[in-house]
């Protein structure tokens, strides 16, 4: 049973501005589990607590209540090696500009494994592998990370975390500011990572369409609490409730609902483009 739960968040509570009249409870009794190899979506509008939550997963923030168990061990115990934990739970922040600093892409990617105290050979091996893994070409190795495009910078940031060989990879809005093509390329790269390496992915996203397309399970946050923790189909069936907290269902779900009320016999639980297409074709008795 336990080996099926890689990470357990147990009744997490976290407050900002403690001791002033503006105390904000950013996390309010949050509990959930991350399983090995799972693709998890984390959604919620700005200020719902999802960024705060994500920073607990690798112990960057210490909760005011509750704790996190990783492989069965309490990560906030005094003797727990939290630096090592950050190698296992890799967190990639939203804007790569917030971390790139080296002269070359290669050195940048070495930064993570270097900090883990590995020997230089192992560090370089991992860096080469990670750079190839995220689809950066060899010409990039000696380039300055600042000369790259937005999408490439993000790949460098992901590679530098991947080089630590994490078991869980947490991505905070990896596609923000990318153009549509860049977004699709990055997401399919992440999908591929999960399939070939078997690592768990936590994707923080504002795009319901992306989440619907890729993840196995969605956690919806609102005002520091978990509102839903279920499969995309179940979560997006609550379109009204999601709208009330500033979110929405994917566009196709609304289209299917429109069609249903217009008298077309479609399955309104469709959340991806392919599902919508198929159910509409079926309802029209179209034989392609």
């Amino acid at each position, binding site marked *: 049973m336990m080996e099926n739960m890689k990470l357990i968040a147990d009744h997490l509570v976290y407050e900002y501005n403690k001791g002033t009249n503006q105390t904000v409870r950013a996390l309010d009794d949050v509990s959930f589990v991350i399983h090995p190899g799972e693709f998890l979506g984390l959604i919620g509008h700005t200020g719902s607590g999802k960024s705060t939550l994500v920073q607990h997963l690798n112990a960057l923030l210490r909760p005011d209540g509750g704790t996190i168990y990783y492989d069965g061990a309490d990560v906030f115990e005094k003797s727990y090696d939290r630096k090592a934990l950050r190698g296992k739970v890799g967190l990639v922040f939203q804007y790569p500009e917030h*971390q790139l600093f080296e002269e070359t892409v290669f050195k940048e990617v070495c930064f993570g494994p270097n900090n883990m105290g590995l020997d230089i050979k192992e560090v370089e091996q991992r860096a080469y592998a990670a750079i190839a893994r995220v689809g950066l070409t060899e010409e990039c190795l000696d380039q300055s990370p600042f000369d790259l495009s937005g999408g490439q910078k993000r790949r460098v940031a992901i590679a530098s975390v991947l080089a630590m060989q994490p078991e869980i990879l947490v991505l905070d809005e990896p596609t923000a500011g990318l153009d549509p093509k860049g977004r699709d390329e990055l997401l399919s790269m992440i999908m591929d990572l999960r399939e070939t390496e078997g690592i768990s992915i936590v994707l923080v996203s504002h795009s319901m369409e992306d989440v619907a397309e890729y993840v196995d399970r969605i956690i919806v946050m609102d005002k520091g609490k978990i509102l839903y923790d279920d499969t995309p189909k179940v979560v997006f069936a609550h379109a009204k409730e999601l709208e009330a907290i500033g979110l929405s269902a994917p566009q196709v779900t609304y289209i299917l609902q429109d069609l249903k009320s217009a008298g077309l016999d479609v399955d309104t639980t469709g959340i991806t483009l392919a599902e919508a297409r198929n159910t509409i074709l079926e309802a029209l008795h179209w034989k392609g």
Partner: protein
Amino acid sequence: MLRDITIGQYYSADSVLHRLDPRTKLVGTLIYLVSLFLFATPLVYVPATLFLMIVIFSSKVPFGYMVKGLKPVLFLLLFTVLMNMIFVKGEVIATIWKIEITKEGLKQSLLMGARLILLILGSNVMTLTTTPTRLTNAMESVMRPLKLIRVPVHEIAMMMSIALRFIPILLDETDKIMKAQMARGADFESGNLVKKAKSLIPVLVPLFISAFRRANDLAMAMEARCYHGGEGRTQMKPLRYTGRDYAAYMILLLYLAGVIVTGKYSTEVLDWIGVR
């Protein structure tokens, strides 16, 4: 951690102090700071502390919030106190290892400590109750005579106001960068001083790059909104003294007189209270 710095941060509230003309507050703060250095007798800290307490109380800024502003300068404070305690010569009252603590040193260090605390709290009151824009407006106005000797008063004021606006943003960003690097295994706590200094490079490089980008963006945004220096500029909130300000100046003068009397006649005052 970085969020705790309150220096230069405006605390929104509706109090007499908030409504005072910023020039009054600027001049008042200067007078207050000077009053702390006029006399060497500890007795002047009685009116100085009393005055500050009244001012803080009438500012409606929570006292705890105000004291939080002392935190980042705690090191400086301790350093000053220790230095005075150790290096001032005089009548030895205690010896710890080879360090002699003297009566004069103890007195001096307490005096310096009290002076620094009052100084920081005093200037904190001003920045907490005055928006930085109003403050820079006041500086521009108070320094206006310097224009005659070609000091770019307007430009200095504008730079200060922009710097103040970006302090919270850059602090926030520093926090984010540190966390992003910690997520990649960076360690800012352990190691000796050299190692610690070295570990800051991954924070400083992105921070500088970001600051320059912001500066560039901001310059463009200002130009796009027709900014072309102080020439021909009007003001949305021109400074105007009201009765409140004249009253404040009167109170300031009374305070200053109080300090001078206490300082000058300290022995007599002590006799009068019967302490001696």
